């Protein structure tokens, strides 16, 4: 019964590696660019410290457009940009581009929400003791919001895994693509079930880790 699994073992491992590359790059983009973008969304909101209506409207429009795009269409629409960035529009590295764009937009929203939960009084105390903007962000805002930021990143990572399953359309590979091509299209049901189980285990592990870290970080 497990013959087919043995037969495709190499492809299976390769697909897992591809998923890790795609999701890993997305997480990196979310943290490096989504976190600052979310912080900017938060600060420019009405009534916040650096309220700026036009910048806020612009950033919100961009984030909303990216988030409302049907994902496959975004992948296709971004092909010229992807080609510009990585030199090709197909393959795993090319697939990381649209995934990262979505990751940045998605995580920035969750960052904004987490930061909104930080009590205003904490930031007022920071300003009263003469904190610079950088100190206010890193010594107060992120410290108080850290468990929310971790939970947001966990939820985002799980979404990125889901998004990554359709990257087969541009040759991105990954576990989802493996399940479709070998399991569904070749009628190897065990292969498909196996791939799905791998995904479920992966998501459970990520959620468990994220929740645990968030809980340990939360001293409130």
């Amino acid at each position, binding site marked *: 019964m497990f013959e087919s699994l043995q037969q495709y073992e190499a492809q299976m491992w390769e697909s897992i590696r591809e998923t890790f590359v795609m999701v890993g790059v997305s997480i990196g983009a979310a943290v490096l660019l989504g976190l600052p973008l979310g912080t900017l969304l938060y600060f420019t909101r009405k009534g916040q410290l650096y309220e700026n209506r036009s910048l806020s409207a612009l950033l919100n429009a961009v984030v909303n457009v990216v988030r409302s795009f049907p994902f496959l269409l975004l992948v296709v629409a971004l092909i010229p940009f992807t080609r510009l960035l990585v030199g090709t529009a197909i393959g795993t590295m090319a697939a990381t581009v649209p995934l990262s764009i979505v990751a940045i937009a998605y995580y920035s929203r969750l960052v904004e929400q987490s930061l909104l939960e930080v009590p205003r*009084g*904490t930031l*007022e105390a920071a300003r*009263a*003791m003469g904190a610079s903007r950088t*100190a206010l962000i890193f010594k107060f805002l992120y*410290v108080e919001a850290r*468990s929310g930021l971790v939970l947001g990143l966990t939820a985002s990572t799980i979404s990125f895994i889901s998004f990554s399953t359709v990257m087969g359309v541009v040759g991105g590979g990954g576990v989802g693509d493996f399940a479709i091509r070998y399991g569904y299209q070749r009628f190897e049901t065990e292969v498909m079930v196996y791939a799905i189980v791998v995904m479920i285990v992966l998501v459970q592990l990520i959620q468990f880790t994220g929740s645990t870290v968030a809980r340990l*970080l939360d001293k409130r």
Partner: protein
Amino acid sequence: MLTLQEVSKSFTQREGSYQAVRGVSLSVEAGSIHGIIGASGAGKSTLLRLMNLLERPDEGMVLLEGRPLTELTELELRRERQKMGMIFQQFNLVANATVSRNVAIPLELSGYPRKERRDRVMECLQFVGLEDKAGQYPARLSGGQRQRVAIARALANGPKLLLCDEPTSALDPATTADILGVLRHINSSLGVTVVIVTHEMDVVRSICSHVSVMEEGRIVDSFSRREEDFLPPAGHSGSYREQITGKAGGVYV
């Protein structure tokens, strides 16, 4: 120590503009404990925030030891703020940081010598009697203990002036007396000038040497009192001045 000259501040709301502070002039004497009392919505907290420019006045000047804060650059203002402490009704500690870390933050901000920070933190915690709580998180402390940590944090950089926004309004009477004792001690032993905004008559009665009464954005009465001033029983009749000093006079609001 601190002088406000004709400061005004209004806020824009949906229904239009609302004037919280209307042309207030006020002098806080060095070494005093200056109480600002009034009903809620009188503009007391806004007035206090004008003193360290958490709110910028629309008009008027704020002078700290003769230096106009209103004309400083952002960087200079941050340096001045590091020499003023501030405590709040809700304490406003960093909940995800330990007690000692909370006290260390202002030292990092002011560039206090790294090697001496730990000693300074312990010194401040000893002053408020919480050296044994250094490693705890604020959530494990009582309200009174949290306010003590906030006081230690405010004292870390050795301020000349301590601004207190309703510092005891979230505390029970016994703890209130306790915290007022700490504030009096800071004033007498460290020589720190204290400004207290409160709506609690007992706070003013028990520790303030100077009192300003605020009503609808204006200071309507100002007086100083001495130790020998008669302390009348707590009551809610007469002007603020009568209730605080036991002497007739003042403005009925």
